Structures are given as C-alpha cells and as structure tokens.
C-alpha cells in the first residue's frame, strides 16, 4: 500500500512537472516591445548596482519617433568579453556604455572615432569636465564621450575622532597627519589583534580595487615618458610613495592588518560602514552606500591628504559611451549620444536617481554637475571641487592591463614585506616595458596593414 502511494504520488508529481513545462512553453512568450518602423539600436551597458530602470533610453524613445534604443544590461565581470567576441565577429551593439579604460578598445580600432560628428555638429567639448577627455582620446582622436564620473575622496568617522580626542571636523590634511591620526585611532583587543583600525592602506571594499596611484601622483609621479615609449615606475616619486605606504602598513599592524581586512565583508560589513575602520579613501558614490547601510554613521568627506612636498590629486573614473566600429547605424547612435550628454537630460537623470535614493549619478556635464540641485546633495561640493585636480586611470594606454596587474602585484608584495619598493617597482617596470614595446611594434604593424588595405581599396576603385 505504502509503495503504491509512493509510486502514485511520484507519478502525479512528474505529471504536474511535465504539465508545468508544457505550460511554460505554451503561455510564456517574450514580450515584443520594439515598435515597428523605427531603427532599433542595441545599447549594451553594465547592469547597475541597483535596480535602476534605464530611464535615459526611455526618454530618448519618447522624444522622437525614428530611433528606438533598446538597453541590454550585462554582468560586470563578463561584459568586456562579450563585447570583445561580438566585435571580432563583426556583430557589435550599436552603442556601448562602460566605465573600463577606453584605451582597451580605442587603441585597437574597436571603437569609431567621433571627431567627424563632433566637428560637424559643433558638439561642445568644454561642457564636460576637461579632466575626463584624456581618457577618451587616442592618437589625437576622440573615441567616446563621458556620460558620468566617479571620483575619490577621503572619508572619516567623526565618532572615532571624538573618542580618540581628535577634532572631528579636522581631517588629516597631510600624510604625516594621516599617519599620526591612524596610530591614534587604532585600538587593540586583549589578545593583541586589532579591534578598530585607524586606516588600512589600499583597503577599498570587498573587491580589491587598487587605487594606489594617487599617492604617487601627488608626489609628482609620471608613469610614462612624453613620447609614450618608456615606462617609468622607479622615479623617486613612485618609490617614495610606495615606501611611505609600506611603512604605514607595517606601523599599523602588517599581518594583523591583513587579518583585520579579511574579516570585512559586503554591505553593512564593509570595514568603514561597520565602524571598525576610522578613515578610508573611497569613491563619490560611497555616500549613498553609507546612507543605505549605515544611515546613522557620523562621517565627513574631504580631499585626500597630501605629502609635504606634493600637490592635491585625485583619481576620476569616467563612465563613457561610444559607437563600436562595425555598428550598423552610427548616425542614429550619435543622436543618442548627443541626447544623453545634454545638460538638461543629465540633470534630469541625476534628479531621478536622487529621488529614488539609489546610487548617485555624478554627471560628466559641468552644468548639470554644478546645478543648484546637484550641489545641494551631501558632500557634492567636495567631489566637484576635486575634479579640478583629477586624473584618469589609464596611464599607459597601450599596456593598461599589464600595468595595472604588475603595479598591484608590486604593491601587494611590498605591503606584505616580501620585497622592497624599489625591487618590486623595478620588476613591474620591466614587465610593463616589455608589454609596451610589443604593443608599439604591433601598433606599427597595424598602421602599415591599414595603409596597405587602403591602398588596395583605392587600386580596386580605380580599375
């Protein structure tokens, strides 16, 4: 009897399953949402950190009736690879919005130069923060337009300052002060492990985001020679900056600091948000994360401390939009780019995002970024001000990823005390230089190839 029930119930269950699957195929159909008679453009972008509906395409689609922009959100870790394969297969999207280095694509001819459009339509470059343009350019041409920006600033926990007897409204202004405060703010458990860290060099969040360039840039470091052929990581500025960080790392606990860092997590367990870390360098949209995960945190935002002989600097990462080469409707795509970088549209989306209390949108358009509304947002003045001395991340355009990898590895090994700053940087320099040399040769080969191809096309045209 029991056996019978078991088999029967199994059968019934299976039947329901099969019916369910059939039902899925009969009733679930994709929604057809593209209106007929319009040119449809695919816009690939990274799915936002929050569930923001991509409103700008919607507004664009409502503003006219010839072009329809269809946004496709893709996972952050894989979007580059998808873009790469589609570019190789000559099946790219019509628009690509991303925040990675433009040079990855522009130096390889995967993006369309926009200068002709810019010239023809009198597109005003000065409407956008000038610091961002360097990242968009390669070999004298423009390959993308910045739509938004994230910049970095110094955050500190005012309660911790009070407890340590420091003035909560006076963040460290110099490296020496940062060092001094960090020591004062670090407290220990009975077993000697760190209870509250004053500062952890290089700690950003759960994902290792190496932001180690700022200190060196403050010292005046240049990473590449003027003509772009020599990598220079072993200049005194680079070495001194790294040595200082390593010294600080060791002074604040070294291995203990690594352990402490490893206990930090995501969301509310971020070191700074959970109140276990007093000072941190973070991006401008960190303000919203604090609001979300630690609304009662009493904190301040200021520009980064600078060395005695240095000048202020900050890193800024632009979000940009470009047209892949091989896209079928560049003219229409350009219309969308113009639309989404307009001051009024940028302000409108900034307002929309702020209303929804989601991650900030920091417009790349100066007029939108400095509008009274935007400036009324918390700490926005600091971020806008810092755009004056902002630098973009791509310092060796032709060998960006190798640079990034080699530099962060050098950084890590110096912090862990495995190598001296000079040794590590020298090794990184050699690696990057080799990559750069190869890329230069490859670039030359590519230019030659293009010239030949053009010649052949011309010859064909004549006959």
């Amino acid at each position: 009897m029991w056996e019978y029930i078991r088999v029967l119930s199994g059968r019934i269950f299976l039947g329901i399953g099969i019916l369910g699957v059939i039902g899925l195929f009969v009733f679930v159909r994709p929604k057809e949402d593209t209106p007929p008679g319009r040119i449809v453009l695919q816009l690939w972008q990274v799915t936002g950190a929050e569930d923001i509906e991509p409103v700008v395409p919607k507004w664009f689609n409502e503003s006219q009736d010839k072009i329809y922009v269809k946004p496709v959100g893709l996972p952050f870790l894989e979007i580059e690879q998808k873009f790469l394969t589609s570019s190789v297969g000559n099946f790219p999207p019509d628009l690509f919005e991303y925040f990675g280095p433009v040079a990855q694509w522009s130096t390889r001819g995967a993006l369309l130069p926009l200068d002709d459009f810019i010239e023809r339509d009198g597109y005003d470059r000065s409407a956008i923060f000038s610091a961002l343009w360097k990242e968009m350019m390669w070999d004298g041409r423009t390959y993308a337009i910045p739509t938004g920006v994230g910049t970095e600033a110094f955050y500190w926990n005012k309660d911790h300052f009070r407890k340590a007897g420091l003035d909560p409204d006076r963040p460290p202004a110099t490296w020496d002060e940062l060092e001094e405060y960090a020591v004062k703010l670090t407290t220990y458990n009975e077993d000697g492990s760190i209870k509250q860290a004053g500062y952890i060099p290089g700690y950003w969040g759960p994902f290792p985001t190496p932001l180690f360039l700022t200190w060196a840039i403050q010292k005046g470091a240049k990473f590449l020679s003027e003509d772009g052929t020599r990598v220079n990581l072993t200049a005194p500025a680079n070495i001194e900056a790294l040595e200082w960080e390593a010294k600080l790392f060791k002074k604040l606990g070294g291995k203990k600091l690594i352990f402490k860092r490893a206990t930090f997590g995501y969301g509310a367990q971020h070191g700074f948000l959970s109140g276990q870390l007093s000072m941190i360098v973070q991006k401008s949209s960190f303000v919203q994360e604090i609001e979300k995960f630690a609304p009662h945190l009493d904190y301040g935002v200021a520009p980064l401390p600078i060395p005695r002989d240095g000048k202020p600097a900050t890193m800024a990462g632009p979000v940009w939009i470009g047209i892949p080469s091989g896209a079928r409707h560049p003219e229409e795509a350009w219309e969308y780019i113009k639309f989404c970088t307009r001051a009024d549209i940028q302000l409108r989306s900034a307002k929309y995002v702020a209303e929804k209390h989601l991650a900030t949108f920091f417009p790349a358009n100066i007029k939108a970024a400095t509008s009274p509304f935007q400036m009324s947002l918390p700490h926005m003045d600091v971020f806008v001000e810092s755009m004056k001395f902002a630098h973009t991340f791509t310092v060796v355009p032709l060998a960006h990823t190798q640079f990034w990898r080699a530099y962060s590895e050098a950084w890590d090994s110096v912090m862990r005390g495995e190598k001296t700053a000079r040794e590590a940087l020298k090794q990184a320099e050699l690696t990057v230089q080799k990559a750069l040399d190869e890329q230069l040769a490859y670039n030359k080969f590519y230019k030659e190839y293009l010239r030949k191809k053009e010649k052949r096309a011309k010859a064909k045209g004549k006959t």
Partner: protein
Amino acid sequence: MSLRRHLHKWYEFISRREIFTGYLFASPWILGFFAFTLIPIILSFYYSFCRYDVLRPPMFVGFQNYYYLLFKSEKFYTSVYNTLYFTVFRVPLVMIGSLLLALLVATPRRGVSLARTIYYMPSIITGVALSVIWLWMYNPKYGLINRALALLGLPLPLWLESPTWAKPAIILMGIWSIGGGRMIVMIAGLNSIPRHLYESARVDGAGWWSQFWHITIPQLSPTLFLLTVVEVIFSFQVFTEAYIMTRGGPLDSTLFYNLELYFKAFLDYRMGEASALAWLLFVGTCIITLLMFWILGRRVYYEAERR
C-alpha cells in the same frame, strides 16, 4: 573447438564490414570535430606564433611567444607549479574520497538512497554560487570553518588571504563539490561487478579486505582509470574557483595555468601568448595522459577485451 572457429569466421566476415559501420556510427563526432574543433585548433596553433589581440590582424613573430614563456616568464612556472601542486593533491584525495562514499552507499539498504542524494547534492552547486558560498565559509572571522576551529581552540588560518593556505582551501572545496559526482560513476561501476564473484569468494572464505582488493578493485579498474584520467585533465584546467575566489592571489599562490591563460587572453588581449600557453598545456596533458595509459592502463581489466 569447431564452434569457436566457426564464430571466428563469422567475426572475420563481419569485422570487414565494420569499417563502414564504424565510421557511420562515429560520424556525428567526426563531423563535429571537423566543423567545430579542428578549425579552431588550427587557428589557435597559428596564433601561437603571432602577436594577436583579436581585434587587429595577427602579426607573425615566430617562436617569440614560446621562447618568452619558457625562458623569460616567471609567471609561467609559477602557474605550472601551482597547477601540479593542485593536481597531485586533489586527484588522489578526490578518488579516495569518492570511492569511500561509493562503497558506503553502493549496496541497497535502509536509507542508502537518501544518503546518495545527499552525497551528490554538493555537485549541483557549480560556478559562481559554489565560489561565493565557499568564500563565505572561508571568511577568517565569520566563516563557518574558522568558527569551528576557534571552538576547538585551533589556530585560525587566513585561508584565501594566505599564500600558504589558499591552495589547500581550493582543494578542500573541490573535494566537497566533486566527490559526490564522481561517486555516482563509481556506483555505476560497482554495481556492474557480477555478484557471483563475491559469492564464490565468500565460499572460499575471503574476508572483506581480500574481496575488496582482489575483486572490487580489479573489476572497478576501468572506472577508476577513467576517473583518474578525467580528474587529472580537469585538474589541469582548474579555473572558475580561482577566478572568482582569489583572482590568482594572494601573491600568485593560486595562479593556476588556465587562469594565467585567461588573463593573457581576455584581460591583456594577448591571444598569441594565450594560444601558445594552450598548446604547451595541450602537449603536456597529452604526454601525461599517454604515460597514464601506458603505466596504469595496462593494469586495467576490460570485459570486452577478452576477445
């Protein structure tokens, strides 16, 4: 005797026709091989002699990629060392672990089918979910493992944050996640062992160890061999865990071969060097597999090859 000769004659006759039948039966694979495998292989072989970033045309550089990898690149040897370390520890552990599991639940008895399901369940988690949950398990402070170790008063390693412990951590995770899957194949093998062998052994008074050693292992040898070969090949290709959990760090301690290959191909866009890496791995794997066939394969006992 005459029957046997008769059979043999039949067999001769049929086997001549099996050339056609053989190719016919194998045609799906042969077709697929030519369509989707051979061309990419040839292309990647060509690319391995080029500087090639995929977006621009390949530039022929001769043996430069190979030369660089074999004689100039520290990272290459780091990744080879890490991968060998991983394989040498993981394969035996997975084999022994999954055989133990299979032996525990191979014979039908009370509760066995539920236990089997439970043993298999970890294999269902793959990719990102697997890595995420184990990142969480290995968290030095909040992770389950260190919480348990703390209760026992043992020292708390930094696991994925420590150059010494990161590889063992990934191996341990692999055993959890793959043991049950391999167990199923072992059970299929165990259950195809003819029962009468055990019966006659028991009649002869053989103990369970003797039965295990003289019947189970030889009879299971095709399965064991197959799994070892596959496990070695898969271990050589370890990728996702390290890609998501450690990105090769700390201090390159989990920089496995395919991770290095992936970084070259899809981070640095050095498809030429990546192809060269792939070919070196390919040749290495072939040699090791051939060695395995040569050394271990001879000890394998096949029913069908008694012919």
